[in-house]
């Protein structure tokens, strides 16, 4: 089995026999790997009909749908893990998608391309053009990646929202790289997240 490096990291850290929801599951590569190697009960959500057909023809349970629209339909805590790989930056409301992810899953894995990687920075700094890189191959006008995010953006985002980072892994050229200076050196990040229980208190006063 030859999983994409970020998916391999996620697969490594999913507990055997667990229930997962893979949001933006593509052709189901991760789901199939988890089913076959770890006996995981995997469900998927995928926007592209061709990908859904490919995943279903692998015997996977995949629903054609849109993370921005359809996650609200899933019951609370119905999965051990909710997984969002390479999809966060394509969402219209990544914040809402992430809220749903942590509502539906006890824990969540989120992977995304890092927009602060040095190659991206140089492209903008010296080229003065929107970066076109290996992980972000589309041009500014046809890219599905409408919410570019950096590792540091993501760290502060989850900190503000009281989300606990249980693990973080960084990739450069498909190889793992260290956490220090990841925002500059990593092309890709994988975060394992859990919602902290204390934020369940109402944050706004309720009028009587």
């Amino acid at each position, binding site marked *: 089995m030859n999983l994409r490096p970020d998916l391999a990291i996620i697969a490594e850290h999913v507990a055997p026999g667990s229930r997962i929801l893979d949001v933006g599951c593509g052709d189901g590569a991760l789901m199939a790997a988890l089913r076959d190697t770890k006996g995981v009960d995997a469900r998927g959500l995928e926007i592209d009909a061709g990908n859904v*057909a490919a995943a279903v023809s692998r015997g996977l349970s995949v629903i054609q749908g849109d993370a921005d629209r359809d996650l609200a339909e899933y019951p609370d805590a119905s999965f051990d893990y909710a997984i969002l790989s390479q999809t966060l930056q394509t969402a219209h409301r990544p914040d809402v998608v992430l809220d749903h992810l942590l509502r539906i899953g006890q824990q969540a894995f989120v992977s995304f391309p890092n927009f602060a990687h040095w190659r991206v920075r140089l492209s903008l700094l010296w080229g003065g053009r929107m970066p076109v890189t290996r992980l972000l191959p589309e041009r500014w006008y046809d890219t599905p990646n409408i919410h570019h995010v950096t590792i540091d953006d993501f760290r502060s985002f989850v900190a503000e929202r009281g989300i606990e980072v249980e693990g973080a892994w960084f990739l450069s050229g498909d190889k793992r790289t260290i956490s220090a200076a990841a925002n500059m050196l990593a092309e890709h990040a994988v975060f394992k997240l859990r919602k902290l229980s204390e934020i369940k208190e109402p944050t706004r006063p309720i009028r009587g």
Partner: protein
Amino acid sequence: MTEDVRFGLARHVILPGPLRLDGGALLSPVEIAYETYGTLNADASNAVLICHALTGDQHVASPHPVTGKPGWWARMVGPGKPVDPARHFIVCANVLGSCMGSSGPATIDPATSAPWGMAFPVITIRDMVRAQALLLDHLGIAVLQAVVGGSMGGMQALSWPATFPERVRAAVVIASTARHTAQNIAFHEVGRQAVMADPKWRGGAYYDLGDPPAAGLAVARMAAHITYLSEAGLTEKFGRRLQARPDRPDGAISFGFDADFQIESYLRHQGISFVDRFDANSYLYITRAMDYFDLGGEHGGHLANAFRATKARFCLVSFDTDWLYPTAQSRAVVHALNAAGAPVSFVELSSPYGHDAFLLDAPEMNRVVDGFLRAGE
């Protein structure tokens, strides 16, 4: 091995029943016309039930006895197809209320020794499913590997795990819905009124006269047929093109009410050819059963409750140009299945052909159904 008369093409069985119907009546006996393909394996675990649509029949993969046309779903069922007699024991039965040999208004009421006509009890989709279960008992099948159906067949495929949660391991529901909408009911009512407005209908007692309400049934079929197609499909196939005439190969506007347009000629042909193979009263009963169908309503108003008891896997397919049972209807079922925690796959496929797309060449549909069925083997 001696030949088992229960298995094969063009089978017919009279089961004693009685079958308690949703309307309260007891039906006895229960006649079922059906076909089987393939071989039931030793532990009877490879049975796949195919459920047909409103005007379908048991000849899913064999030539129709009246029209001689190939089986109505030979694209899905047959050697090398997703439902394959080499792997599956395939059962397809004419639904209760229909007119191809199963109990319906045209069969004999034992109380009067005459055709039932409108004395036949009104039936539901769930009654059709219960009759199919009687047939499976007769065939020695306790659990279905899968139940597969499109349109009204999809309603049965949804009703199966809801009615017999332990008897079905997988359900394939194509171009279907969990409930008939006001618009669905409205179109059916137009069809029924067309039949009943035909003086030859005679309150349903036309069987002995040899002169059925063909005009009314043809109009019903014409109206319904429009709902099976899409505007884009009609435009592509017919546009405003004129019908050829003997003296005018390119057609002409007649300034009259002949079938000037090709679409008129096509619909008239659909209507006329339909009455040769279908019974008007059956059309009334089956459209009524579809209108009554509301699977959530049968389960306290919560569709998810229909699926709480079953462990079956589900696969739903819709088509983007189907306005009879649009994708939103399939999505509602998917959401209910998710809420019930059932394993479910769903895909909306693209086709120009509207509701009828499920009966036509749809390689992606076949790929999805094939993969889904193999995953359970």
